């Protein structure tokens, strides 16, 4: 409970209940937000954080509960009403329209208009300003959003929230797609906003971020508030984790057993290049080895993975698996040979949203379990269930539509797909994006177990500590070139950052 009173509460959500057909996502959540604070919302995957902020954004209607703004009860029957009450939201899943330009996206739904004509010049001018403020003057207002990277899209989504002149800005895992430099930009903007008395509701699974910018914390577990208005500075991490998970979780990277020198090379990439993105990338991953790719967003990391996988056609160079060369630009060949990729953007690249969880998990194996073209759905379900249990998927019901899973649980389902498939080489692009603390260590342990069983793993992550902690060997990528390669334990985060920055400054 709050003991001191001022400043007065800006926003209160009381006893919010939200039921979906067959699920009670929120079961009485309270949230108090003061003006000029960064209020962090913590909770495991599926705890109900996104659902709560969707209620606040008018995207869902609460089954029960009240919302107060400045002490007065308000109704938010639709998203426009939320904006009218001064609540702007950045959703967890990027919600920008690919076919429109940056400026059009930002002013979508509240176009600057006079007598019915949109004022493009004014919109362009303001967009340019917003982009400068967010540290991205290079993103042109006229650029089509579909051509931006995931991080670029996140910036656009952020700019849109800023353009609304909101009093409360809700950010659902905004840092998940950003690298450390971008996160700094984001935090600078957040601090500016807070100084102006704007309240930020901030959701993230990265506790160190919350330590950096948060003021107070509300913890949600299984749709209920279990810790309210905790002071960021005085609440120890293990207490937070205990509140979130209900148990003590060790947040550590698994042991590195060390790869024997005579372990065979599984994946051999030689002189690979992709026009305009990267060139001359050579790397090899041995059986049982985890290799991490570190670099800034936009340095070409994801493209390297996708090209190895055949999802992009290489301009030159070769990819070989166990000494056999793979056909250039053919995913089918790569998958057939035993390579799996868990892509960066799960929603657009990974999931068939209207299909049940188990079919998403078996998307690359249903043909294998089928007999003469006839599906064996029982085998599919069993395989999916097994992984759902192993990865602690919540809820573990594999028959529900994957759309209804929380973000972190969707990510687990993506991993489950390749676990069912059983790969020789696993390419992981941001494997823990949006995954909670507890499940993170589980995923690390799992990746290590796979490696120990002989899989070659290539990991890309924006979180440098993750790359350094998980991988045996690290390649640092800058501007599409490998600028450093070496054991992960002989280099630290600052050195990596320096190399990355130097490369992009040069």
């Amino acid at each position: 409970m709050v003991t001191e009173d001022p400043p007065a509460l800006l926003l209160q959500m009381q006893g919010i209940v939200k039921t979906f057909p067959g699920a009670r996502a929120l079961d009485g959540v309270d949230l108090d937000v003061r003006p000029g604070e960064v209020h962090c919302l913590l909770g495991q995957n599926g705890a109900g954080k996104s659902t709560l902020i969707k209620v606040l954004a008018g995207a869902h209607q609460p089954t029960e509960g009240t919302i107060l703004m400045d002490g007065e009860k308000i109704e938010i029957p639709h998203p426009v009403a939320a904006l009218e009450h001064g609540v702007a939201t950045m959703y967890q899943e990027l919600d920008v329209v690919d076919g429109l330009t940056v400026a059009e996206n930002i002013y979508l739904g509240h176009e600057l208009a006079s007598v019915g004509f949109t004022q493009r010049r004014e919109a362009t001018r303001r967009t340019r300003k917003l982009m400068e403020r967010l540290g991205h003057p290079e993103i042109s207002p006229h650029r089509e959003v579909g051509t931006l990277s995931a991080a670029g899209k996140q910036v656009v989504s952020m700019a849109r929230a800023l353009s609304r002149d909101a009093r409360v800005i809700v950010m659902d895992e905004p840092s998940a797609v950003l690298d450390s430099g971008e996160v700094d930009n984001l935090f600078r903007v957040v601090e500016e906003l807070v100084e102006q008395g704007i309240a930020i509701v901030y959701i993230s699974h990265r506790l160190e971020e919350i330590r950096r910018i948060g003021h107070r914390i509300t913890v949600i577990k299984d749709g209920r508030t279990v810790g309210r208005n905790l002071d960021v500075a005085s609440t120890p991490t293990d207490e937070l984790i205990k509140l979130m998970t209900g148990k003590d979780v060790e947040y550590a990277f698994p042991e590195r057993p060390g790869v024997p020198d005579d372990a065979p090379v599984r994946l051999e990439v030689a002189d690979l290049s992709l026009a305009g993105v990267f060139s001359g990338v050579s790397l090899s991953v041995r059986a049982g080895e985890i290799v991490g790719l570190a670099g800034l967003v936009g340095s070409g990391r994801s493209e390297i993975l996708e090209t190895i996988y055949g999802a992009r056609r290489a301009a030159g160079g070769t990819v070989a698996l166990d000494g056999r060369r793979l056909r250039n630009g053919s995913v089918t060949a790569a998958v057939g040979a035993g390579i799996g990729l868990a892509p960066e953007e799960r929603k657009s690249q990974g999931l068939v949203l209207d299909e049940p969880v188990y079919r998403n998990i078996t998307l690359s194996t249903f043909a294998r379990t089928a007999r003469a073209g006839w599906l064996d759905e029982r085998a599919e379900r069993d395989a999916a269930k097994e992984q759902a249990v192993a990865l602690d998927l919540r809820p573990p019901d594999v028959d529900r539509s994957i759309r209804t899973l929380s973000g972190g649980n969707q990510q687990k389902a993506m991993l489950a797909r390749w676990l069912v498939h059983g790969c020789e080489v696993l390419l992981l692009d941001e494997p823990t994006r949006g995954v909670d603390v507890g499940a993170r260590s589980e995923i690390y342990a799992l990746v290590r177990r796979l490696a120990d069983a002989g899989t070659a793993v290539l990991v890309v992550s924006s979180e440098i500590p993750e790359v350094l902690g998980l991988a045996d060997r690290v390649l640092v990528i800058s501007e599409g070139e490998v600028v450093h390669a070496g054991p992960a334990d002989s280099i630290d985060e600052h050195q990596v950052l320096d190399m990355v920055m130097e490369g992009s400054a040069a």
Partner: protein
Amino acid sequence: MSEQQTSSRPAADTPKARADHRRGHSIFSGAVGRNLGLVAALLLLCLVGFLTGGDRFASLTNLMIILSLASAIGVLSIGMTFVITTGGIDLSVGSVVGLSTVWASTLATQNLADQYGWIVMVGCALLVGLAAGLVNGVVIAYGNVVAFIATLAMLVAARGLAELIANRRTQIVDVPSFDNTFQGNLVGVPKIVWIFVLVAVVGWFLLNRTTFGRRTVAVGGNPEAARLAGINVKRHLVYVYGLSGLAAGIAGVMMLARTGAGSSTTGMLWELEAIAAVVVGGTLLAGGRGTIVGTVIGALIFATLSNVFIINNLDSSVQAIAKGAIIVGAVLLQQRISAPRSS
């Protein structure tokens, strides 16, 4: 129906019960449940038919008439269901029906059929349909031409080719073995209705129980995810359009049997009727969800509607208006019933 049920218990409490519950649904009541609005519409139409037409409507003979009417377009609609489930469209099916009837009834084909049996005509019709479909598929998948445009081109071209071959004349079929095989009844039901039933059953299994169907849904639901999971999306699209063409070939055979002649005007505007049946049936135009049961009911609704109008000697223009209203009404109803989003 299962999507609609509101339970206040947390899902985690009874995951098994719910899973079992849902599995029970997917076979029978799932399909019928989701198509509840459609069944209601069909029953309502039958009621109107009975009230206005009396025994002329509610007779076994008339039932067979309705079913025959629904058959050829029904078969087209089954093929179209697959195409639309991938998020595509096939505007060429009507023309391809015309082309296949013409090609299968040229003098040359009929002469061969006299020699070697009806199989020659059927083979010819099916091959023509399949070939046209495969061409569509290749142009769309590998030529990266939008399905709407590619199949629009085929619509025009196939009709033109049919006119060229037939010289704008109707070609009477005079092959006894063909007539014996495909005309008349089998256990009281017209043979072409049996063909429809067979195609529908095969289509249902294909969509719901085979890897082909799973790929179709995945490609329509999220082509990029399907591709990255290792599905050969382009090749699959070729197969799906090939399938739709094959369905048009089968419909061609049915029309040869029903009318006893091949003509370049056969199947005019049928692509629209097929699309209407599919969409009214509940298959998403955006792709990712398809239902054969819905399509069959959709085809039956339109056939029944025509029949009710004919029985009452009503103007065909009025009938067209009614069809339009039904399309919009059924789609609105579908959205109400099956909207998964609750807010």
